[in-house]
């Protein structure tokens, strides 16, 4: 081929895949080589901006250690340090083997485990569809042992969407607890990072409560250190100050939009009318007790004691006020280490800023205006009583009516009018029951929960009737089937490139046993990470720069930027051809499904998931290329004129949203809970099932109003063997996706000392530890060497372990041996798993002491 004088350079729109968000990209390709990646200014989410991970994408594409060929394991043994003895094989052999293994277990399809989370693309859905069609309930849709465990169920029944986001456009006071929202992490990061900066420049006050004084704390107007695992106590004391000392709460909202007025009997449950079984309310207007949906209801009472059904009953709101009165700031100071005057001051600031009763008119529509909110995420979820560490924080927003209104806490992706209409729905007892979602997923539900039954699932999902995920339990049952009456085990795993071994669980020794217990594992891989070391077959997976996807990330559907931001859709298209032997994963799944006779079922599930209408739905009896599938999807959603070719040329399709899609609070025909009445029945049912199984679990978390209960780490440091609690935190340049095998990402980590663990400077000095010293970091289940960074920006009782490091796989030579894996330190048993949400406890008691270099370890 003749050389040309000018370099052939083109800019191709596509979607990033370096984390789960999926920002819009323009990728510059010169003579078939990717030379530059920029943000697409047309994409309403990232608005032309790009984070460090996105910019580093070139290095993922040109990783010399990428898997480019199907591989087979030749070593019969599996272990963390066992060389798999990879041998290149053909696709035919790889798929033949997988199909044979699937056929082997088809008589008991529960033996199949699917791990499908990946840096979001269509395979996330296809692999799940294969599992469902096969007949297994064991489908891990989530990645981490805390990720979304509490926030999703809470949002499903108290927000209507998927995740939460402060309304940065109108907030005047934003309190972050255990999260670095819009500064270091969270969905739609590139969008919210700018919104956060603008909000702060406009004068929004930012307060960060966190054991680690990290990025968010450094930009905050105030950082308030907190002892890990004590968020419940803090939140309850703030509720007490708000409700009982300051008397700040939204009476109107509580009366008409919450179950605050629902009458509670002596058994803690709703008093129900004898005809239809509906919860009852006392109407202050005429003194009569009515059903909650009585059209004559005018003025629900929030206090008092009323005779109904032969007993005295009181409104739930009054019970809440009484309960939180036990949590005075003086009492919680001892638990949280936050001084009582601080709690009073920030509660007063929050209460005044939220301006109960005020309104704002946007585009001619009047809304309640509540320009203050409390936000939380991973830090509060990852505890032995994680649900209750979070729930009272959400309550702070609910009692002042600051949910889904301008300035308050918004629920992400909850509602929309285009391309189809979706909206959250009320259900049982007039309460919010079904969350809204753009995709036809089974309606996200966490209320009223499922009836517990004797488990047949290896993740004991039946024993967690209020949870949305269950996978943290797998290593517990892998060790011990008999206790739970399980007469089989997981024998086969099909997984995505996600590094679940290191990232989806805790105690690495237990996880290793879990992976060793599975007879056959096949996984997709971009790079050989620690999970792949246990694979029998490895299937090469394309780089995101080589893929077709209709679903490009959570920014498109479940965690879009909140506020009045255009709806945007894009597709992912290859900017370069993948290596010869690398196939689109969805095509591989289609082939496997076809070979075991499930293709029609898989299509039926995918047509439903992707809402494909005639004539675009996939028909059994033929296979489709990844590009064809995307083409059908976009034409089905956006019309014939917006086919794949249109998206390949134009990049982003934008549809403006109006204010009533943005701030849905006033239009939601469902009440939000301030009293979780359903917990009592679920707890009683669960206790009965457990006792039939001969088991006794601590079910004290099945309560309608939260109480603080300590994590195991809290008691452990009191006893003295351990004196510190280790927690995890995020770096903005590794958060949420591919990490430090990327050499540029690694360079930044080395330059910023990200691989060191954080220790309070005074504490370090007291232990004779200097900055940069190598130490032993020891938890009850693991002991590792680490380098210490002494800092003022951390609670004295805390060790900070950031990022997603501690890799050892030979397939990751750049990341290997750098930093430590936080998850590997975490004890994994039922005492460390939240009985409501299955979140794994992420605060662990540790010791830190100097490593004597003369001593051979």
């Amino acid at each position, binding site marked *: 081929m003749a050389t040309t004088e000018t370099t052939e350079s083109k800019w191709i729109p596509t979607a990033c895949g370096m984390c789960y968000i999926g920002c819009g990209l*323009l990728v510059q390709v010169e003579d078939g080589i990717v*030379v*530059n*990646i*920029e943000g697409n200014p047309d994409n309403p989410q990232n608005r*032309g*901006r*790009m*984070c*460090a*991970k996105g*910019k*580093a994408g*070139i290095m993922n594409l040109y990783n010399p250690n990428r898997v480019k060929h199907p591989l087979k394991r030749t070593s019969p043994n599996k272990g963390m340090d066992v060389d798999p003895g990879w041998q290149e094989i053909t696709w035919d052999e790889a798929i033949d083997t997988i199909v044979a293994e699937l056929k082997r277990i088809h008589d008991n399809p529960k033996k199949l485990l699917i791990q499908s989370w990946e840096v979001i693309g269509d395979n996330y859905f296809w692999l799940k569809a294969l599992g469902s069609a096969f007949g297994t309930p064991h489908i891990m849709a989530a990645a981490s042992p805390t990720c979304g465990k509490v926030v999703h169920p809470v949002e499903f029944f108290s927000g209507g969407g998927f995740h939460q986001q402060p309304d940065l456009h109108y907030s005047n006071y934003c309190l972050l607890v255990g999260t670095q929202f819009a*500064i*270091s992490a969270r969905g739609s990061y590139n969008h919210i*990072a700018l919104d956060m*900066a603008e909000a*702060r*420049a406009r004068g929004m006050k930012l307060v960060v409560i966190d054991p680690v*004084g*990290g*990025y968010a*704390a*450094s*930009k*905050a107007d105030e*950082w*308030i*250190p907190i002892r890990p695992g004590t968020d419940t106590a803090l939140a309850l004391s703030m509720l007490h100050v708000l409700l009982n000392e300051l008397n700040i709460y939204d009476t109107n909202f509580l009366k008409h939009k919450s179950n605050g007025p629902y009458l509670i009997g002596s058994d803690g449950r709703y008093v129900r009318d004898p005809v239809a079984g509906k919860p009852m309310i006392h109407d202050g207007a005429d003194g009569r007790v009515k059903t909650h949906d009585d059209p004559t209801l005018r003025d629900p009472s929030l206090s008092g004691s009323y005779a109904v059904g032969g007993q005295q009953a009181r409104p739930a709101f009054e019970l809440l006020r009484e309960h939180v009165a036990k949590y005075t700031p003086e009492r919680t100071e001892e638990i949280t280490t936050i001084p009582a005057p601080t709690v009073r001051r920030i509660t007063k600031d929050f209460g005044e800023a939220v301006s109960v009763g005020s309104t704002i008119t946007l585009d001619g529509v009047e809304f309640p205006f509540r320009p203050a909110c409390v936000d939380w995420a991973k830090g509060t979820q990852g505890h032995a009583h994680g649900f209750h560490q979070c729930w009272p924080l959400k309550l702070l927003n609910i009692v002042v009516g600051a949910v889904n209104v301008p300035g308050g806490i918004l629920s992400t992706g909850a509602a929309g009018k285009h391309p189809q209409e979706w909206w959250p729905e009320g259900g049982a007892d007039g309460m919010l029951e079904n969350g809204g979602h753009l995709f036809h997923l089974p309606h996200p539900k966490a209320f009223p929960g499922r009836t517990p039954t004797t488990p047949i699932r290896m993740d004991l999902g039946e024993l967690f009737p209020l949870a949305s995920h269950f996978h943290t339990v797998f290593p517990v049952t892998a060790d011990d089937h008999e206790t739970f009456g399980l007469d089989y085990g997981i024998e086969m795993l099909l997984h995505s490139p996600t590094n679940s071994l290191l990232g989806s669980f805790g105690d690495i020794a237990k996880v290793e046993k879990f992976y060793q217990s599975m007879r056959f594992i096949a996984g997709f891989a971009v790079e050989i990470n620690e999970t792949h070391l246990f694979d029998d077959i490895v299937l090469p997976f394309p780089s995101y720069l080589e893929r077709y996807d209709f679903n490009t990330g959570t920014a498109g559907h479940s965690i879009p930027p909140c506020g009045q931001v255009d709806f945007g859709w894009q597709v992912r298209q290859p900017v370069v051809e993948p290596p010869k032997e690398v196939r689109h994963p969805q095509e591989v799944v289609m082939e496997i499904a076809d070979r075991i006779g499930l293709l029609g079922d898989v299509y039926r599930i995918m047509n439903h998931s992707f809402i494909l209408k005639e004539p675009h739905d996939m028909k059994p009896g033929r296979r489709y290329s990844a590009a064809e599938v995307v083409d059908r999807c976009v034409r089905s959603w956006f019309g014939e004129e917006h086919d794949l070719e249109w998206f390949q040329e134009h990049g982003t399709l934008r549809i403006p949203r109006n204010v009533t899609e943005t701030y849905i609070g006033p239009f939601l025909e469902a009440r939000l809970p301030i009293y979780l009445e359903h917990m009592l029945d679920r707890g009683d049912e669960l206790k009965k099932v457990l006792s039939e199984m001969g088991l006794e679990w601590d079910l004290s978390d099945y309560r309608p109003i939260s109480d603080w209960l300590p994590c195991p780490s809290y008691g452990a440091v009191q006893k003295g063997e351990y004196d510190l609690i280790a927690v995890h935190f995020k770096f*903005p*340049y590794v958060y949420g996706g591919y990490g430090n095998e990327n*050499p*540029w*990402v690694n*360079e*930044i980590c*080395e*330059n*910023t000392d990200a691989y060191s663990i954080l220790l*309070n*400077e*005074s504490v370090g000095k007291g232990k004779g530890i200097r900055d940069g010293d190598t130490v032993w970091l020891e938890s009850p289940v693991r002991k590792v060497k680490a380098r210490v960074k002494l*800092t*003022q*920006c*951390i609670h*004295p009782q805390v060790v900070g372990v950031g990022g997603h490091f501690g890799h050892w796989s030979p397939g990751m030579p750049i990341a290997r041996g750098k930093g430590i894996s936080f998850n590997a330190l975490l004890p994994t048993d039922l005492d460390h798993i939240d009985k409501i949400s299955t979140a794994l406890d992420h605060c662990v008691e540790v010791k830190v002491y100097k490593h004597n270099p003369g001593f051979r370890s």
Partner: protein
Amino acid sequence: MATSVTEKPAMAEAVESVSGRVTGAPRWGMAIDLKRCTGCQSCTMACKAENGTPPGVFWMRVLEKEEGAYPLAYTVFMPLRCNHCSEPPCVPVCPTGASYVRRYCMLKAGVYVPSALVGLDMSKLKRTDSDLAKEYAEMAARRR
């Protein structure tokens, strides 16, 4: 390098020309609002990706400096970059001539604007990890 004060070295001429004193062309600078900077290192990465600097070499980076004492402690994020001086002091001192003034800097996607970015001639650097440095150098050469 110049050996007498009357002889203007090519380097100084290049600096003067982009400084606007000779051509009258505008000189661009960059202001960074430190109140907004969160230390996310996107700029560090963008510069490295654009210029292909070898491992450990950053033409743009964000320093982190702690201030205060617990609990009134925080980190200040200080983006540090070539400041595009009109008379860059780091250029004349370089004994190997590796430092030079380049006429442009990529301040906006696809738009080269006149400036005085102090660059590094990779071929004059000592190689550490030779393969990797070579790949970076080749990529940087393509960018020029």
